[in-house]
């Protein structure tokens, strides 16, 4: 497993899923930082300056969309990919307003596919 020189920030309030993603991405060679709610997500993004942010939409304290807006406003150029279990088109459409954003539906996708998507987004492989 080669080390990949990319940092991923995973923001997810479900401890199990967060752990799964963390293990997977670490095993793929990424360096991973995590946050469990929107506010922490903003501060960790500021501190760690990740290359890509993989985030849930429904988060405590501040939802993923708001968090993404705040991060973008602060000039952070990180790519953002949303992971969600909701199929609410309203949420997705408001996410689209933030520009070129991807979203993946957690229950419809496998972990390895998430990794592939992230790698594609980062222009790797």
């Amino acid at each position, binding site marked *: 497993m080669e080390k990949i020189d990319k940092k991923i920030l995973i923001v997810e309030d479900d401890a199990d899923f967060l752990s*799964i993603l963390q293990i997977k991405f670490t095993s793929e060679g990424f360096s991973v930082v995590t946050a469990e709610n929107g506010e922490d997500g903003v501060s960790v993004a500021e501190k760690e300056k990740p290359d890509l942010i993989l985030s849930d939409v429904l988060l405590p304290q501040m939802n993923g969309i708001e968090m993404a807006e705040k991060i973008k406003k602060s000039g952070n150029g990180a790519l953002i990919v949303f992971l969600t279990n909701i199929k609410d*088109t309203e949420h997705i459409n408001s996410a689209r307003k933030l520009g070129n954003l991807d979203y993946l539906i957690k*229950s419809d996708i496998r972990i390895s596919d998430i990794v592939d998507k992230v790698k594609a987004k980062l222009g790797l492989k």
Partner: protein
Amino acid sequence: MENVGELRKEIKIGEPGYVNKNCWLARTINYPPSKRCQYCESKFQHCLFSRYLLISLVLVASLLSVSMLVEGGISRLLIISIFALVIVYGYFFDKSTEDIVEANFAQRKAKEALEELTENLQQKVDEQTKEIRRAYEVEKKAKEQLETLNDVKNQFLMTVQHHLRTPLTSMMGYADLLLSGTFGKMSKKVSDIIKKFQASTTSLIKMVNEFLDITQFQLGKEVISLKENVNLCPIFKDIIKDIELEAEKKGIYVRIEKPEATCFINADEPKLKAALMNIFDNAVKYTKQGGITIKLRLDGETVKVEIKDTGIGIPKERLANLFDITFERTEEAKKNFATGRGIGLYLASQIIKAHNGKIWAESEGAGKGSTFFIELPVDGGVVH
């Protein structure tokens, strides 16, 4: 002084007139009450009787005064005759006037009675209307309450379904990690078991997703998102490949007639594929012998699909509610064919309808096979 002819003209239909019951002259000579005016409450000068009497008296007085000035019995006789003539004329005038006024009076009374009846009727109608309106409001409220309850139920279902997906997703994730060797190598036996575990979890997730779609349809929410120019060909290829595999296992044939031309429509690919898959699956599932014939063609602006099977068929009385959410599988189906939740057709039909398409089935009856028809417009409709 008015003459009698003028007085007669003054009586208009329905106007008060004739004898003022309070007329002091009428009371003085005790004029019969039945002849007195019932509703003339006006003053002395309206009273015709009094007028008549007054005129007569004035005439008499004048004549008597004149006669006093005239000598001779003949003159006096003449004067008395004139007086008599006046009285007689006045009486007949009186009489005919009385008839007119009494007729007017009767008419007026009838009119009043009719008005009262109308008013009563109107009152009754108003009361009834109020009652009906009240009952309607009660029913309307009840209906609104039911609709609210239904929405609450559906929202609750959606919340439950969303929450079900969270642990399911983690289960799939852990299985993935195990199988990808992240936690070290596993024996084939263990990895086979994990694969079975994953298959069950996948089917559970699929079930939850389907129930969620149904609830969203029920809530009237948008379930599909149409994309332009989706190629139907590979979709059909995949579906047909799957059912050919299944059919081979069962020893039934699959015959396909399809055009060479490809077809692009506006569609929500995964959902449409799932809906079509369901129908094709059913055809194979419910056929024990014989086989399936599939016809695809492009008819103008419509893609037409026909799936004919030689399976258990559908009883005529079941054809009507085939695509309803409450549709139960037939006894035959439940007895001889294990799987089937009975929601597949409802969901498939909702998805096809959401694509502005049509779906229906025909069957000669139980045991005589069935044919499903699906039509999809090439220009599927609104695209997001």
